[in-house]
């Protein structure tokens, strides 16, 4: 059952809510964002925020202007956040056409035995699967909205024949993407993907082979840096591609050269994701929270220096999503940093045998198998206990997230990690300060008028302004 919209402050009890902090008054939290002149004031439930000059803080907090502004907007913002958290329907599938991979990366969340010898989905079964998904999405999406299929891994290009058959057959029914380690991304593959408007994501962790090859290697222990860089060269000029780097102890101190390298190769967007600690092996390269934040923010600042010098942006998509969570919550694209996360409600994952999981991160955790695409009714699978465990994980039930001012900017990722590493859905994941520092940095950028510099050009096209002070 969908949670009812909680009444915003001012409507819950017989209190006039004249003042912040008591009765029906808004529970403003004051946050030191590390800016020399501004502090943030946040009402967590509605993600309402303002930045206030430090010397004006007391006057602003207890004056009429802020309270009136909050009262005017609180219901609208509460509804907006509620819809994002509980009102969206699935519109994407992470589709693993094979269990196998030709690499043995340190932090992979797919079990080793599957990656060594897992099944391939046949072209016939893949076409059947996409047909089932097409029929399902007709019931959830408006006619003018295309669902997304992202071929993911393991390494999807090991089953190229089936993937190509699916894309060719359903090219007008889905927006397709593929995430690949790029070792099999030859000229013919790129030509096919470009011709079919397929978005391409490739994985690379560092600008130097000595670092990149620490975590991303073949089963025989050989690095693949050279092959990935060749693919980068081939993709130059293609607008629909991105690079994902996974932040670990192995590349933490090498992010700035990576940013320079990606910018130099005209990569339009990258993700610098902190690694997920879902499986024990990945925890061997888990970076310290504080160190991860420090180097990540330096890398973000480096993207800005490059933009100022060249006029060309390298967008760090996962950080851009945090900025959007603050400045335009409904525009966020990635659904890991919201609670409940997008797993099982905005998207789900399909394994090569048709088994369905709330998210790719759960493939390999049999307990989270909700059903099978070929045998079960999709809406029924979304209501199964494994899916409900994920879609029911809320920051309100997690300590300290339930009293954290930035809980709707961070979302306490990730349920798979929390469950496997920390033992419960009601625990946090592996990182906290990493997200705290990102949000503080995001607010500093807003205070300094640099929001646009870290987002795609035209990011707010078609949006309406709902609040300004």
């Amino acid at each position, binding site marked *: 059952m969908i949670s009812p919209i909680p009444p915003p402050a001012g409507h819950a009890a017989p209190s006039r809510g004249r003042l912040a902090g008591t009765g029906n008054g808004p529970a403003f939290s004051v946050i030191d964002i590390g800016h020399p002149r501004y502090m943030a004031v946040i009402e967590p439930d509605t993600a309402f925020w303002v930045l206030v000059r430090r010397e004006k803080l007391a006057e602003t907090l207890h004056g009429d202007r802020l309270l009136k502004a909050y009262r005017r907007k609180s219901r609208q913002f509460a509804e907006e956040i509620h819809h994002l958290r509980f009102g969206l329907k699935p519109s*994407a599938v992470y589709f693993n056409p094979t269990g196998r991979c030709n690499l043995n990366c340190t932090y992979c969340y797919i079990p080793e035995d599957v990656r060594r010898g897992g099944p391939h989905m046949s072209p016939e079964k893949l076409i059947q699967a996409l047909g089932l998904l097409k029929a399902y999405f007709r019931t959830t999406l408006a006619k003018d909205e295309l669902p997304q299929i992202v071929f993911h891994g393991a390494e999807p290009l090991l089953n190229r024949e089936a993937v190509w058959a699916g894309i060719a057959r359903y090219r007008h029914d889905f927006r397709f993407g593929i995430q690949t380690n790029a070792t099999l991304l030859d000229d013919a593959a790129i030509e096919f993907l470009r011709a079919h408007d397929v978005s391409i994501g490739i994985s690379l962790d560092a600008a130097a082979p000595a670092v990149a090859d620490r975590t991303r290697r073949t089963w025989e222990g050989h690095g693949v840096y050279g092959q990935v860089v060749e693919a980068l060269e081939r993709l130059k000029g293609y607008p629909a591609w991105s690079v994902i780097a996974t932040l670990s102890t192995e590349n933490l101190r090498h992010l700035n050269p990576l940013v320079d390298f990606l910018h130099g190769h005209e990569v339009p967007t990258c993700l610098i994701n902190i690694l997920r600690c879902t499986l024990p092996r990945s925890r061997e390269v888990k970076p310290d929270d504080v160190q991860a934040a420090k180097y990540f923010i330096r890398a973000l600042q480096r993207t800005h220096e490059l933009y100022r010098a060249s006029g060309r942006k390298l967008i760090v998509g996962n950080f851009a999503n945090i900025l959007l969570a603050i400045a335009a919550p409904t525009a966020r694209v990635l659904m890991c940093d919201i609670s409940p996360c997008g797993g099982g409600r905005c998207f789900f994952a399909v394994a090569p045998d048709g088994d369905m999981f709330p998210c790719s991160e759960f493939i390999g955790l049999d307990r989270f198998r909700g059903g099978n695409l070929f045998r079960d009714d999709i809406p029924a699978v979304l209501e199964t206990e494994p899916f409900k465990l994920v879609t029911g994980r809320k920051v309100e039930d997690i300590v300290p997230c339930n009293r954290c001012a930035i809980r709707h900017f961070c979302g306490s990722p990730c349920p798979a990690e929390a469950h496997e590493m920390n033992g419960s859905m009601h625990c946090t994941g592996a990182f906290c300060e990493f997200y705290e520092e990102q949000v503080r940095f995001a607010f500093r950028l807003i205070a300094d008028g640099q929001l646009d510099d870290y987002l795609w050009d035209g990011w707010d096209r078609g949006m309406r302004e709902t609040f300004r002070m």
Partner: protein
Amino acid sequence: MKKAVKKEKEKDVVACRKSCKAKGTGLSHYILMDRKAKKS
């Protein structure tokens, strides 16, 4: 050409929020690039 950097005039209080139809769909393992691929 280098784009001029916008800077808010420093004010006592700064706040802005925008809205659009929510379409959030992605997990952080992948970001689907929206721009139409060029045919070469």
